[in-house]
């Protein structure tokens, strides 16, 4: 079977772009990705795309050209981008197609997401009485984790501080100013122990990746990035997930643990082999827990690692080098693909002011979200 490569990457700046629809930002990203590898839209044989609030992805053809291609819409919550990528990977791996696009975009209203109990299969009382907020779930999950593993709340501030520091170096990020630790810790407490600056916000943006079989990739680029693993897993009974009126008495490992393990097995690599890492940081607590769930440390080791700078761009496990969700915001459909975009940029050595030094060879991405799913990739140059 052929190897699958990423040959073109495109992004529309994250944040807020008034006067431009989510779909237009997705189309912009596709055009950038085509330009990146010297292809044109008629060269594209298939597409998988998704958006949570920006409309149907397949309507992108109105902007890009009615070439008759297979275009499948993907809707998979926070793993929408990851699932689009997984689907595109499989189509090429199976020999069905040689070159295609995975695209994601979004444009969310300001403020926390307002969830609909019915669409999550819950009754109205749950939302009505003020229990249906993603922010509460994040607060409660990290509250328990900090307690069980004896971590101080300040570790949450350190994660956010790093995110803003990295965002400052990323021209496509939304938040581009450093925020000091005191300001982060003392900002409005949204959901104890998480303050305002520790959360990412719903946002806008678009990312497109052009994938090709190795044979075709060589025709267009001399610097393909190989997609060594793509995995996506959903929750088991007993995992602690958002919008749960009840939890089982015993915790099961999180879906990330399974997605991560599958990715390492697929690539024949381990966490110690990763030179650049993007993991889901919907809020600071998520980055803390995901460090352990993805195998980068043991539970409880995070504070030491953060304090010694291990996860800085200059550290031994550079993490969320583009500022992550905290500095970029979260346009759901595009968020997972942004991570892959960043790793490809880093593996090419094109990340500019935030470039990880010593020619990183292997990179890792991880998304996690409602209703308890996770998708991981491993990339190599």
């Amino acid at each position, binding site marked *: 079977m052929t190897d699958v490569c990423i040959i073109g990457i495109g992004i529309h700046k994250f944040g807020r772009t008034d006067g431009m629809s989510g779909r237009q930002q997705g189309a912009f990203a596709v055009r950038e990705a085509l330009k990146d590898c010297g292809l044109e839209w008629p060269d594209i044989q298939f597409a998988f795309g998704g958006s949570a609030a920006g409309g149907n992805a397949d309507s992108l053809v109105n902007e890009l050209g009615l070439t008759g291609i297979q275009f499948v819409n993907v809707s998979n919550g926070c793993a929408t981008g990851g699932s689009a990528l997984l689907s595109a990977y499989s189509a090429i791996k199976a020999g069905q197609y040689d070159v295609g696009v995975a695209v994601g975009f979004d444009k969310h209203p300001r*403020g*926390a997401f*307002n*969830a*609909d*109990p019915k669409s999550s*299969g*819950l*009754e*109205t*009382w*749950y*939302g*009505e*009485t*003020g*229990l*249906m*907020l993603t922010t*509460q779930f994040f*607060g*409660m*999950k990290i*509250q*328990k984790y900090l*307690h069980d593993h004896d971590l101080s709340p300040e570790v949450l501030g350190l994660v956010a501080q790093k995110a803003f520091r990295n965002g400052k170096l990323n021209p496509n990020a939304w938040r581009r100013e450093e925020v000091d630790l005191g300001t982060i810790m003392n900002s*409005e*407490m*949204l*959901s*104890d*122990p*998480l303050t305002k600056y520790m959360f990412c916000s719903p946002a806008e943006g678009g990312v497109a990746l052009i994938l090709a079989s190795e044979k075709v990739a060589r025709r267009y680029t001399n610097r393909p990035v190989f997609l060594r693993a793509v995995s996506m897993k959903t929750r088991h*009974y007993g995992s602690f997930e958002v919008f*749960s*009126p*009840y*939890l*089982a*008495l015993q915790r099961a490992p999180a879906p990330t643990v399974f997605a991560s393990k599958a990715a390492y097995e697929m690539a024949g690599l381990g966490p110690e082999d990763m030179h650049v890492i993007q993991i889901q940081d919907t809020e600071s607590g998520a980055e803390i827990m995901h460090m352990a769930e993805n195998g980068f440390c043991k539970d409880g080791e995070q504070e030491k690692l953060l304090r010694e700078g291990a996860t800085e761009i200059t550290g031994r496990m550079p993490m969320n080098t583009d500022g992550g969700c905290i500095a970029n915001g979260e346009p759901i459909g595009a968020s997972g693909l942004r991570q892959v975009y960043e790793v490809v940029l880093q593996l090419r050595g094109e990340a500019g002011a935030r470039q990880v030094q010593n020619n990183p060879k292997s990179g890792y991405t991880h998304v996690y979200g409602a209703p308890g799913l996770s998708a991981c990739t491993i990339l190599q140059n």
Partner: protein
Amino acid sequence: MAKQQVPVQEGLFTWPSDNPQLIARREKKTGRVYFPAIHNYVADEDSEEVLLGTRGKLYTWTIQGFLPKNPPYKGPETVETFKPYGVGYIELPGEVIVESRLTTADPKDLKIGMEMEMTIIPFREDEKGNEVVTFAFAPVKG
């Protein structure tokens, strides 16, 4: 005349009752308990209704610090009158862990592992002037 109290949802807890209890379902084959019972997590023929204990331990907690969006939230507060409220999960021994509003919003009152007890609290007034009540957990005093 006293306002009539109506539950936020029929079948969520026993009401009216002097000792209200949450209503759950236990799966016969596995013994797993699912809450609430009104949610069809498990088929009726494979499960039985159980009333949950009213005492448990605080598994985790947070304080909701901002007014949730309406919809889905139907609390009576405005941005001006909103006061933070506590939310937590309470582990009911041998049964299940349930999510609930808490009667306190002061972090100093809350410690993971502390004893909690179920109660019924007024939540809002409905269109007919009834008092809508819901369940909550309170720290056990003493």
